[in-house]
């Protein structure tokens, strides 16, 4: 049984302008001790998926359908519809979380030690002293230099990388089975990003926890994840083992993203194969295959009318495209753009 299994999750926001389905039928599973990368661009629903798992979707958002099954000691419980009190024991207890901007996850008026100890005491009945000792241990675990001194410092006295380590320490307070990391290194510099990614990989190995890594950076996914799910416009368009996905991407979107990377290329010689058009916002997802207006392989009428299903094209490699594996020649200009 996987540690976490999401089945057909639908999370929508009800705004004055109408219903906005940010997550529209997402299915995922994460095995214990593995890292799943959830990749996508702004508005694709990757963060809303994470928030749904944590039961933190804020009004006017609502989980409308689907199951989120968490394996708890061999018994699977559905997080959807679980009362808030029980959810709270799972959040921070079974599932830890870290967010993009470490400064906003830390309270500026309390010391680091205070906040980490607080995270410990929220889920474990221990004395203040024991919590502080545990906090120190956690700071050591995330390899903060000179942890005794840091314990009594305030968040603003720490650097960005250090703060993210503190946030990770708080998330690990109760030894969660699953760590959800939403763009944990996006606000950090590359050399600091390297430190944090290395730390996460090391912690995963030592603590045996699973990680759901949400990011827009394919490079980060390639270097840290076992499995990858690519999201586009509220749906998963491709799911595979990381090695397989990067070796042989099947969905035109994934192919496009990889082809557009400028890595080790020179402008003088070859222009980048950019994906045309813009990233659709949840308010106006197109009909049919949601990528069709930007897809160079689009074929009428099927792509514009019929929603492709997520099918297993190769063992363990799922793709949501009518013609994946048999894309044919790319059109120079996608149909939709030509019409304008």
């Amino acid at each position: 049984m996987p540690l976490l299994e999401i089945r057909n999750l639908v999370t929508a926001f009800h705004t004055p302008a109408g219903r906005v389905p940010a997550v529209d039928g997402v299915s995922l599973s994460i095995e214990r001790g593995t890292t799943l990368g959830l990749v996508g661009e702004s508005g694709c629903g990757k963060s809303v998926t994470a928030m749904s798992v944590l039961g933190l979707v804020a009004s006017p958002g609502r989980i409308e359908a689907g199951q989120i099954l968490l394996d708890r000691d061999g018994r699977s419980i559905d997080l959807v519809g679980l009362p808030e009190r029980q959810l709270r024991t799972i959040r921070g207890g079974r599932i830890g979380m870290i967010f993009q901007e470490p400064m906003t996850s830390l309270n500026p008026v309390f010391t680091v030690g205070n906040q980490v100890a607080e995270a410990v005491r929220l889920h474990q009945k221990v004395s203040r002293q024991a919590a502080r000792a545990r906090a120190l241990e956690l700071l050591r675990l995330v390899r903060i230099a000179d942890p005794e001194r840091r314990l009594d410092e305030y968040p603003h006295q720490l650097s960005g990388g250090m703060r993210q380590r503190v946030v990770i320490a708080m998330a690990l307070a109760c030894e969660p089975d699953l760590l959800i990391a939403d763009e944990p290194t996006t606000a950090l510099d590359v050399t600091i990003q390297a430190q944090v990614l290395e730390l996460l990989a090391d912690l995963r190995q030592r603590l045996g926890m699973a990680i759901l890594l949400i990011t827009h950076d394919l490079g980060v996914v390639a270097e840290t994840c076992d499995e990858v799910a690519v999201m586009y416009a509220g749906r998963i368009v491709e799911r595979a083992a990381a090695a397989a996905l990067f070796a042989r991407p099947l969905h035109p979107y994934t192919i496009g993203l990889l082809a557009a990377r400028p890595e080790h290329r020179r402008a003088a010689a070859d222009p980048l194969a950019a994906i045309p058009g813009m990233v659709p916002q949840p308010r106006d997802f197109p009909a049919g295959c949601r990528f069709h207006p930007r897809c160079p392989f689009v074929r009428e009428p099927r792509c514009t009318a019929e929603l492709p299903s997520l099918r297993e094209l190769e063992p363990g490699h799922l793709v949501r495209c009518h013609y994946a594996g048999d894309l044919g020649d790319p059109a120079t200009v996608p149909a939709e753009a030509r019409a304008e």
Partner: protein
Amino acid sequence: MSDATAPLLAVSDLETHFPIRRGLLRRVVGQVRAVDGISFTIQRGRTLGLVGESGCGKTTAGRSILRLVEPTAGSVRFAGREVRAERPAALRSLRRRMQIVFQDPYGSLNPRMTVRALLEEGLLVHRMGDGRERLRRMTAALERTGMPAGTLARYPHEFSGGQRQRIAIARALVLEPEFLVLDEPISALDVSIQAQVVNLLVELRRELGLTYLFVSHDLSVVEYISDDVAVMYLGRLVETAPATDLYARPLHPYTHALFSAVPSVEAERRRRRIILPGDVPSPARPPAGCRFHPRCPLAEAVCREVDPPATTIGGHRVHCHVAARELAAGDAAAASQRIASLLTAAGGDRGEASKIVATAATSPHSPPGSGKATP
């Protein structure tokens, strides 16, 4: 254009310090040395990539050149004129020739103005053409950036990030400048949109003969678009070289670390990662000696005391005691290889970095020493 050999832009010993003020009387209690003595030149029609991490001063450097922030010392010569000596009126006319595109297309376009008002402002300030001529120029600039003329009547918030960045580029182009400072122009955009804007910039450079200063933290984009690259750390340039040279044979330990830290999707190109300890120190209190020494795995006694002077080999300039010594012993390729292997060895000793290392392999692009020379 008169002198083909003179660079369009020559920056020498540029310093921009910001005073730190405290108390009721706002007394100056210190200086943030955002840019602390940098020198480089850009030839007409070429692109210099300025890379570095946040807080290294690269954005301030770009703005100091246009005097959008006032430099405190040094010289900026643009097309033979000293920018720092110009009076406000002359500076304004110079600014027509040197334009800037900002990182955040949401912040850099005034939300209360239509696209037309935004584009027309510069033309009005510089009294360029009558109403019809202005309209023609604006339409032409928008067309060049791939935006229809109908854009003019709209407000910035009606467009997506990529479209706004095109509008921001059009605003710079409408004044027909020769030189553009591109300050992280694609960092705020979605991954699939970034390539569109990069292609646009490359195309404009080719068609209009523009000269770019491309400021970015994204090493792969800088490699793609730049002819020359300068690496900045804590207000200083640590290494400057032609792009192909720098990426093939980095010399400075910081450059090595920076390159190795970039996550890559290409498994065969994934390098042995050099993980730097610690954080970037504050530019208000830069360390003595080599500014990189507190984080440098190769730091020696001399690095803690003596600010390394420039060592030049061909067009490749580096500020590093270790690199200087290695260069004295052999050619650049050998020196780069040697420094890479020293770095990986140092990383292994720390016992931390080695754990994550996935595949160490060689490729024409990775530092030649990274794979083979591993002890």
